[in-house]
C-alpha cells in the first residue's frame, strides 16, 4: 500500500471517529480526548452518575450538567503551537 492511501484511510478514520490520533498528536490533545471520553461515559452510566451525586450531595441533573459542561475544555486552554 502506498503512503497516500494510508494517509487517506487515516483521514477517513479521523473524520469518522473523534479522537483518532495522528503522528502529530500532542499530549494535551490526547488528554483532552481522554477526559471527554471519560465524562461522556460517566454521563451514560447511571450508577456512576449516582455515585458522584451521593458523594457531592448534588442532584443527578446537576452532576450531569457539570460533566457535560466540563467537556468543553476539560484540561485548560491548549498550549501554543510552535510550528504555527
Amino acid at each position: 500500500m502506498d503512503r497516500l492511501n494510508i494517509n487517506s484511510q487515516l483521514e477517513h478514520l479521523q473524520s469518522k471517529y473523534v479522537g483518532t490520533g495522528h503522528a502529530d498528536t500532542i499530549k494535551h490533545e490526547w488528554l483532552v480526548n481522554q477526559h471527554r471520553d471519560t465524562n461522556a461515559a460517566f454521563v451514560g452510566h447511571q450508577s456512576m452518575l449516582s455515585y458522584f451525586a451521593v458523594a457531592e450531595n448534588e442532584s443527578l441533573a446537576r452532576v450531569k450538567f457539570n460533566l457535560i459542561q466540563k467537556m468543553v475544555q476539560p484540561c485548560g486552554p491548549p498550549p501554543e503551537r510552535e510550528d504555527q
Partner: protein
Amino acid sequence: MFLYNLSLNPPTAINKAIYGNFSGTKQQEIIVARHTRLELLRPDPTTGKVHTVLAHDCFGLVRSISPFRLTGGSKDYVIVGSDSGRITILEYNPVKNTFDKVHQETYGKSGLRRIVPGQYLATDPKGRAVMIGAVEKQKLVYILNRDSAARLTISSPLEAHKSHTLIHDCVGLDVGFDNPIFACLEIDYSEADNDPTGEALKDTEKILTYYELDLGLNHVVRKWSEPVDYKANMLIPVPGGTDGPSGVLVCTENFIAYKHQDMQEHRIPIPRRAQPLEDPSRGIIISNYAVHRMKVNRQSQFFLLLQSEEGDVYKVTIDHQDNIVNGITIKYFDTLPVSTGICILKSGFLFSASEFGNHYLYSFEKLGDDEDDPEISSADYMEAEAAQEETPLVYFKPRPLKNLLLVDELESLAPLVDAKVLNLTDDDTPQIFGICGRGARSTFRILRHGLEVSEMAVSELPGNPSAVWTTKLKADDEYHSYIVVSFINATLVLSIGETVEEVTDTGFLATSPTIAVEQLGEDSLIQVYPQGIRHIRADRRVNEWRAPSEKTIVQAAANHRQVAIALSSGEIVYFELDNTGQLNEHQDRREMGEIITSLAIGDVPEGRQRARFLAVGLEDCTVRILSLDPDSCLESVSMQAAQGVPSSLCIIEMMDTGNEIGHGTQYLNIGLNNGLLMRTVLDNVNGQLSDTRTRFLGAKAVQLFKIKIQGNPAMLALSTRSWLTYTFQNRLYLTPLSYEQLEFGTAFISEQCPEGVVAVAKNTLRIFTIDKLGVVFNQSIIPLTYTPRRFILHPATKNFVIIESDHATFSPEAKREGLIEKERDGFEIDDEVTNLDPLQFGHVRNTAGKWASCIRVISPFQGDTLQQIELEENEAAFSVALVQFRNNPHSTDSNEQFVVVGTGKDVTLAPRTCSSGFIHLYRFVQGEDEQNQTLELVHKTAVEDVPTALLGFQGRLLAGVGKALRIYDVGKKKLLRKCETKSVPNAITSLHTQGDRIVIGDIQESVIFAVYKHIDNRIIVFADDTTPRWTTTSTMVDYDTVAGGDKFGNFFINRLPTNVSEESDDDPAGGRLLYEKGYLGGAPHRSDNVAHYFVGDILSSLHRTTLVSGGRDVLLYTTFLGSIGIFVPFVSKEDVDFFQTLEMHMRSVAPPLAGRDHLAYRGYYVPVHNVIDGDLCEQYNSLPAEKKRSIAEELDRTVMEVQKKIEDMRIRSGY
C-alpha cells in the same frame, strides 16, 4: 472456580419513567427503566396502589426510553436507547405479558461512547420520526411510518451530525402536522480547542438549534439556531399545533426562557426558597418536568410541572392566543423528593420516580389554583431584569404538601451504601442489614426474606381453634358470608358483614368439631363432621348422611360438586351432586387397607361435571391418585412414593404458562409430616404424576390451603413458617410470609377485603392480605439523618453503630451560628422556614467543603436511635471499626470492645484534601437510664490524612490513613503509632485480615496482599494485581483468595499462587520478602485472576455467607442502585458444562431485549471469565414452548429436566 450469578433483588433505582397507553386500552401505564431492566407498572385508579405487571432484564444499560404513538393510533410503543449501538422499538403484548421487539436497527458501535447515539431520545409528538443523539456530534433521525398491513416501519437513518459539538439536551418539538422539528441544546468547542489564550472559551456560546426533518425531501436541515444563556441545561417542548404556541422552554440557572423561531422571548425566574442561610451566588436549575394536557370546555389546555434540583415543583402556565405567547407565569406548587421522572396520569395521579430512596405515587388534591401562592409573570420579571444589572432573584416560602396527597410508595434501596449479612434473630435465613439513601431521607433497613403481609384484623377467640373455613351461600355470590371456626368439641359460625358476628341459625351443627365446609351446587352448603355429613339446603332443610356406627370420618375433601370422605377404617366414600341438587353416595366404597392421612380433590373444570381425580395420602408414605370417572370410579390410576407420611394434599391449577383459566398446569402438592413439600405435575388426562420437586419448609407437618392472589390460584403452605406458592409473571414462586406461625388458613373475600386470607394462630383469628408479589424481601426501616457511610455491629448488645456524613450541608451547630450571624446582619428570621421538615425539604445546603456528620447507635429490633453524637468543627466521619485491644490502659477487661471512628476535618472532595484527620476512640458505657449502653469518647488522635479504612488487628488497630497503612496501639491519651508502610499506591479503601496476612483494597490499584512480620514489626507488601481496579469493596473468600468489586461495575476474584502464599508465610523475619526486587514497578509477585464478570452496577458490599440452612456458601453482593445478588460456586464439572451450553443457547435463541450482545455486556471492561449468568439461564422458563424444546434437545434432556436444574440452582443456595 466457576460461579453462577443469580440476582435476588433487582436494582430499585429508576433512571427514566414514561407513561402512555402501552396495552392499547384506555388505562395509562408507566414504564420505568431501572438501569438494566424495563418494568411496566400499572397504578390501580381505585385503590391507588402501583402494581408491577412486567419486569424484564435487558442485559444492557438502558439510558433513555421514550413512548411514541403513530398518528391516529391508540397504542404506545416504547423506543429504547441503550448501550447497544442500536435503536430498539418495543411493543407491550398484554396477552402474553411480554415486551415484543418490533424493530432493532444497528447504527454504531456498542458500549457507552461519546459519539455513539443512545443518550438522548426525542420523538415527534405526532409519531412520525425519532431523533437519537449522542453526547457529542452524532444525531440520527429515523422516520417511522406504517405499511399497508398497519405495521410499524422504520426508515434508514438520516444524519444530523455536527462535529466538535456537545449536546446537553434534545427534544421533539410539537409542530402539529408540519415537518417534524427537533430542538437541541449544543455547544461548539472547536474554537476553544484551538485557542491557547483561552479567549475563545469565553466567547463560546450555547446554542439552541432546530433540526427540521423535511418529509418531502427525506432530509434533515438545520433550520434555525439562536444563542441562549451559557448555563442552560435543559429544553422543554411546549405543546403546539392546535393545543398551543409550540416552541421550547430553555431552562437555565435561575431562569427559564421561552424561545421559538420568529417569536418574542419570554423569561420567568425559578423561585428560590426564602431560606436565610442560602447562598445567593449558587444558581438553581430545573432537573425534571412533566406536561399535562387536558380538555376544559372542549378547549385543550395545558400546564407544566417543573422540578428544581432542590425538589421544589413549580407550575408553569403559558398565556397564548393564535399561536403567539403573551406571557408565562410560574408559581410554587409543592415539594417532592428530587426525581428522575414525573408522570402525570389522566386518572388524577402523579408518579414521581425518585433519584434516591422510595418512589411515590401521589393523587392530585388541587391543581395549584390557590390564590394564596404568589404567581410570578414573565412581564413583571423582565421589567425587573431590565431595571437591574444582575439576574433578579425571586423567593417563595416553602410549605408542606398542599396540592398532592401521598397514596402509595415503591420501596427503593438505592443508594445502598453498605450492607451486612447477619443472623441476629436466629431465623432459618440470615437478615440483610443495609444502610441506604442520601441526606435526610437516609434509612437503615433490615431485609428479611419473605413476602410482606398487611394485617387487617386480629380477633381473640375463647379457645384454640383447630380450623377455619369461609363460605359463600350461593355459587354466584361475590363475597363470602360465613366464617366457620372449628374447635376441639364445637363449631362456631360467624357472619361477615359490616362487622363479624356470631350466628346460630345457619343449620351448622355447633356441638361437634368440623372437618370440612364447602358451598355445594347452586345454593347449598355442606358440613362434614366426625359422625356424618350435613347437607344444608337454601331453605334450611338439612339432609344428613350418618357415618356407619363405630366408624368416624377422619378426612374429607370437597369441591362444589363432589365430596369424598375417609373413614377411620381406611375406607373412602364418594358422593356426587346430581342434577336435582341431591348428594348421592357412589355405590362402592374403596378399601385402602391403610390409615388415610389426607385427601384432596381438584376444582371442577369449567363446563365439566366433575373433577377427574382424587388424591389419597396413606400412612405407608404413598399418595395414590384415584379416578372419579363414572366408568372407573375410585380405581387407582397412579401412585407417588413420598419421603414421609403425607399430612396434607392439594390439587391446584397454577397459571405458570399463561393467564387463561384451564390452560395452566395442574399440580398435586404433597405436604409431609416431616416438613417437606413435594410438588408434582398431575396430568389432566391420564392422571399420571411427573416432575417432582421437593422443598423443606419447616420442622412441622405441612398443611396446604387453596387461596387466590391477584385473581390467580395460589396455595398457602403452613409449617413452622408460612409459605405461599403463587404465580407472578408466568413464573411459579414459593416464598415465605413474614408473619407469625399459622396453623390453618383459608381464603377470605369480602367487600372490604377482596383478596384476603383468614388464618388461625394460637387462640386468634387473623385476617390479612398479601399485596406485594414478586418482592422477595420484606423491609423494616429506621430513619437516619445524613447519608450513611459505614456501620458495624456491636455483638455484645446487638446494636449497630452507624457513621453518617453529608457534604455541603449545614450541621446543626453551623446552622445555629449562621442564623445568629444573619440576625446580626439584620435579616428577619422566620422560624417556619428555618425549621422546615428535612424529610421533605432536605437539609439546608452549605458551600462545598462544609460537612454535617454524626455517629449513631441504633437498636435494630426496637427500631430506634439510642444515641446520636453530632461531630463538630466541620469534621466528617468516614470509617468505623470495632477493636479489642490487647494491652489497654482504659480497661481492666481485656474483652472490652472499643469503637474507633476515622474522621476528617475540612475535607474537600476534588482534590482530595483535608486540614487534619482524626481517629476517635469510643467505649460503650452504661447510659443514664441504666438500660442501654451509650458511647463515650476516650480520646482523639490527630493524623495527617483521612483514615478511610480501620480494622482490629491482633489486639491492635490497623488503619489506612490516605496511602499509609499503620498499626496503632492504644495509649492513655492517644493512639500510639507502632508500625507503618507506605507501599500502597493511592488510598486505602478496605482492609481485611486472616492470621498475619493483610489484604488492602486500593482506590485505584486493585487489591494488594501484605504480611505482618512480628519479629521485625514490619508490614511487607508482597503481591498485587496486574489490572488497575478502582475497588469499592472486597472480601476474603479464603486465606489466598479475594473477591472484590470496582467502580465500573466489575466483579473479580483474585487468588495468590500457592508458592507465593507459602513463601510469604515461611519467611519468619521477612528478610527475603523485604529485599525481593519489585517487578515492573509494583510488588514482587502478582495474584492471578480467577473470575471476572460485569455486574452492571457498582458493587457496594460483598459477603461470604449461607442463605439457606444447610445450603452452600455463596458470595452475596449488594450494589449501589439497590440490587442484591449472589455468586454460587459450582460443585461439579458436569453442571458447569450444562450451564455453559445452556447459556450459549440462550444467548443465540433469546438475545437481550435492548439489542446488547450478552457476551460483550458481561465482558464490558474485561472479558467475562468463569462466571455464568444465571439470570439469563432463568429466562429459559419464559421462552415459547417450541424454543424450550429445541434447546432441551441440544442439551440431551427434556424441558422439565432443564427447568428443574435451573430451579435447583436457585433454591439450593438462595431464594
